[in-house]
Every structure is written in C-alpha cells, then in structure tokens.
C-alpha cells in the first residue's frame, strides 16, 4: 500500500532509483539466511514449549488424581494401614508445618544477622562467608540430612522432628542470607547516610532504617526458602523419619519423636502396591504443591512491594 502512494507521488518525476534492484531488500524465505533464521526461531519456540509440557502434565495429573481423593477427611485423619480404606495425612500436614516453622526459627534470625554483617562489610571474612553461603545453596539436600543425622539423631539417640528441622534450616539458611544481603544492599545508601549523619549508631541504623526498608525483600527470601524447605524429602527420610500418629499427643508436643511429613508420606505411599495409598500420595502431592505455591506467591507479592532504588 505504501509503495502505491510513493509511486503516485513520484509520477511525472524522474525516478531517482531507476535501475536499482529492490528485490533483494524484500524479506523472502527463499533466501537461505532468512530461511535458517525462521527455522531456528521455530526450533527455539518449539523447545521452549516442549519444556513446559511436563509442567502442564504434572499440574493436570495433580488436579485429576489428587483432586479426586482430596476431602476434609483426607486432610484431617491419620494415614491408613495396608489394605485399610479411608484415612488421610492430617498428621503429615502438621508435621511439615511444625518442622518448617522450627526451621524458620533457626535459620531466619541466623540468616538475617549474618546478612546484616555481610551488607556492611567488604572484608575477607565477608567474602568467605558469602562463598560458604553460595556453597550451601548447591549443597545436596540429602547431605543436610546426613549432617542432621550425625549431629542430632546420633547425639539424641533417635529420629525426631527436631533433627528434621535442623536439616531443613541448613537448606534454608543460604537462601535467607543471600537474599537478605541483597535486600539490605538495595536500600539506597543515601538513606543510610542520612541516618548516620544524624548520629545513629550502627545498630540504630540497621534497626530503624535498613531492616524496615529491606523487609519486603527479606521476606521474599524467607518465603522462597520456606517453599524449598517444605518440599524437601531427602533430608527428612532419616531424620524425622515417619509416624502414623499425631505430633500432638496427650496434650504434649512430641518434638523428639519421629514425625510425619507430607513429602515423606508421598515417597512412602508412592512405592506401595495399594491403591488407596497411591491415591493418598497424589492428594498429598496436590496439597504439598499448593503449600509451596502459596509460599512462592507470597514471596513474589512481597517483592513487588519493594521500594525502588
């Protein structure tokens, strides 16, 4: 269309481009370069979409097979024995929640205090700490379990939710440290200068300016760590083990007893030859994924609230 206009306007005027062959400026798939380009575009698009197929498959299967079995009863009753009908994973939900909560108690203060130090210093110690935290992020989760087994299970003489929580907190710690440090460093240095210029001590600067300003970012990191910890199985198999009973018995919290968790329940039930258990495993998987997603979404919502630089 555009070319028509041009031609009309140029009517009567000598065409300055006469003799120039414009055809090689047009985009044509017949040219090998263009063709290869288009093919590669298609290929990456296809690969990316293909990478998402498993995600959809997992989600669909969870909703279909897990949703079928999900009920109030499943959420509130104890795991069934072999060949027993009904049952649920109420104690596993409690166990996962309690262990993650205890792990938060261990790792969050630890992580934030470390992050405060890291954000303030650029010395060798800080560098080594940062390196250690990075190493811990790549640390196989099962080794956290091995560590908790050696440090807690062997020392206290039995499997316990405490051991599980220790293992989980080792896994949460690096995420909390690194994201909190980032969040604190993101606080504009002008604000820090303002506080120091008014005669704030370091502690006052941290408590009254840095942490309040950085708190959305820090919480984002905590939520990410929670999401990761809640789904971890390997470190729990031989620290918290499993239990068919409630964590809360006779009015007491049995923190030093073996404890059920959603992840270990899924692992155990997935390998069982009983239909009821397999169905429960899917339902528990749905609940677990929902919990993890909630933690993730909460983290993202918080990070959206972070102040701009």
């Amino acid at each position: 269309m555009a070319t028509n206009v041009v031609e009309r306007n140029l009517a009567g005027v000598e065409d300055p481009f006469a003799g120039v062959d414009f055809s090689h400026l047009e985009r044509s798939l017949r040219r090998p370069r263009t063709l290869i380009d288009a093919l590669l575009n298609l290929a990456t698009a296809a690969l990316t979409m293909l990478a998402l197929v498993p995600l959809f498959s997992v989600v669909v299967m969870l909703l279909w097979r897990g949703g079928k079995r999900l009920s109030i009863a499943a959420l509130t009753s104890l795991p069934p024995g072999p060949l027993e009908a009904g049952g649920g994973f109420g104690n596993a939900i409690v166990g996962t929640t309690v262990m993650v909560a205890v792990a938060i108690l261990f790792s969050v203060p630890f992580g934030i205090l470390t992050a405060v130090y890291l954000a303030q210093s650029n010395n060798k110690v800080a560098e080594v700490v940062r390196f250690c935290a990075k190493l811990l992020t790549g640390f196989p989760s099962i080794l956290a379990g091995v560590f908790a087994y050696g440090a807690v299970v062997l020392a206290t003489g039995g499997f316990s939710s405490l051991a599980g929580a220790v293992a989980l907190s080792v896994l949460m710690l690096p995420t909390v440290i690194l994201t909190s440090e980032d969040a604190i460093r993101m606080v504009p240095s002008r604000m820090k200068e303002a506080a120091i210029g008014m005669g704030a001590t370091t502690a006052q600067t941290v408590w009254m300016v840095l942490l309040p300003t950085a708190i959305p970012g820090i919480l984002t990191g905590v939520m990410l760590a929670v999401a990761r910890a809640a789904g971890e199985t390997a470190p729990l198999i031989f620290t918290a083990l499993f239990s068919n009973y409630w964590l809360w018995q006779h009015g007491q919290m049995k923190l030093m007893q073996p404890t059920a968790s959603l992840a270990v329940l899924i692992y155990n039930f997935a390998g069982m030859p009983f239909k009821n258990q397999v169905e429960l495993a899917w339902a528990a998987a749905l609940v677990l994924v929902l919990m993890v997603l909630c933690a993730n979404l909460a983290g993202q919502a918080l990070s959206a609230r972070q102040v701009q630089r």
Partner: protein
Amino acid sequence: MSTAMPPLRPANGHAATLPAEKRDDIVVDCHIRELYYGSFKAVRDTEIPIRKNSITAFIGPSGCGKSTVLRCLNRMNDLVRGFRFEGHVRYRGRDIYAHGIDPVAVRRFIGMVFQQPNPFATSIFNNVAFGLRLNGFKGDRADKVEKALRAAALWDEVKDKLNKSGLSLSGGQQQRLCIARAIATEPEVLLMDEPCSALDPIATRRIEELMTELSQKFTIAIVTHNLQQAQRVADYTGFLYVDTTQGGRTGYLVEFNHSKHLFEDPQHPHTQQYIRGEFS
C-alpha cells in the same frame, strides 16, 4: 614541603583566616592540615572558624574539596575507607578527632543535610520523628514534629498527610522534610551540602529564607555552587581552590572573610577570577 612552597599558597599558612576579630564565639574551629583518601591528598591547609548563629558558606570549583571539608566537620568521612586526617576540628573547644571521642555523638550535635533529598521510606511523621527516637526523646513527639515541620516551612503542605510516605513528596518538599528531620533534634550546628542543587528557583528561595531564619537558633555551614546564594544568605564565605602544582589535585582554602568583603573586595587573584566567573 615547606621549602618548595607553591606560589598559590597563602603566605603564612593561615593568612586566610579573618583578621583580628574576637574569636570567642567560634562553635566549630576547623583546621585541616592534610586530608587523604587513601594515597590521594584531597585537601590541605584549610582553616575555617564557624561562628555561633551565623551562616558560613564554602564556595569553589567542582572537586576542590568543599564537601570533603564539610563532611569532616561531623566525621561523616569516617565512613570512607582509607580516610586520613591531620589537623583538628574543635567543637566547643574539644577536638572531635581526639582519641576516645565517639563519632556518633558528634553527629548528634552537628547535623547534616545532604545534596540529594534522602527521606526514609516511612511516613512523613516518622521521618521527622526519627531523630527523636534516635535520642530516646520521651516528651511530646507530635509537638516536636510539628514545630520542626513549621520551622522548615513544610507544615501547611503536609499537615493533612503526615502518614503518607516521605518519598511521595516532591523533590523540594523532600529536601525541606530532610531539613525538618535534621532540625527536629535541635542540633547546635547544621551542615548543608548543596541543599538546593536539586531544586527549582522557587524552592531554592524558600530554603534560603529558611536558612536565614534558622540561623537565629542554629549555626549553619553550607556548601554551594551558587555565588548569589552565598552572597544572599551567608555571613561568612570561604573560597577553596584546587592546587595542581604538586601533581595532585589538592584543595585548599584561598580566602575566608565576611561575605560582603569577600564578594565586593576579594583579596586574592584566584578569588577575584572565580567571582568574576573567569574560571571555566
């Protein structure tokens, strides 16, 4: 160094100080012999007396160390790695760089307003009340906050939205908020580093009026690039210049005098050229 004395240097090292005049109202007595950032010598031979209830302005070309000198006065430079300082800064006769002096305490008494407005990401009220909390003030905070905001000529604009974020204000309002924050605790000395450089002429005028008012109660030292501003508000003005003769870029004080004298009858050729705008 004293053997190869560069020609730019004042004859006896402190010729730049005021001629015989009573020295008993000097609140901050700044004498920088040498000041280093790492191995870089940033400032030398700068002696400035800052007098009670007066406004003292520092002028000079960019990079001559005005901010550095100002930040010396409440030990903000301590935050810079490799900062070294020779000389003394006396506040009420006490050397604030002496051994055993807590820089945090110094900064409570000698407040600072920065070039860029830097309110905290909390409400307007909390911004102003920050210093009160810092000092563990037990009395009526709301009253102090209101007084400070009034003194900073901001009260009427924000009295209905004290719970709004300090960051939601305009640049000029933010700067006045920062001034309110700084004066809420009633420090004796207020250091201002180009407080108007981010502001439009109208906001600048308001802040200038504000400074004149505040000088009744506070002692103010201000860095400015705006010669008219120094002329308008400052009682005393110091002119700093860069000495490149020794290979480095070391700032030093060329001339210090009553603003009236310094602008109308500058003694040193460099000052004359600078004031007439002959430096690029």
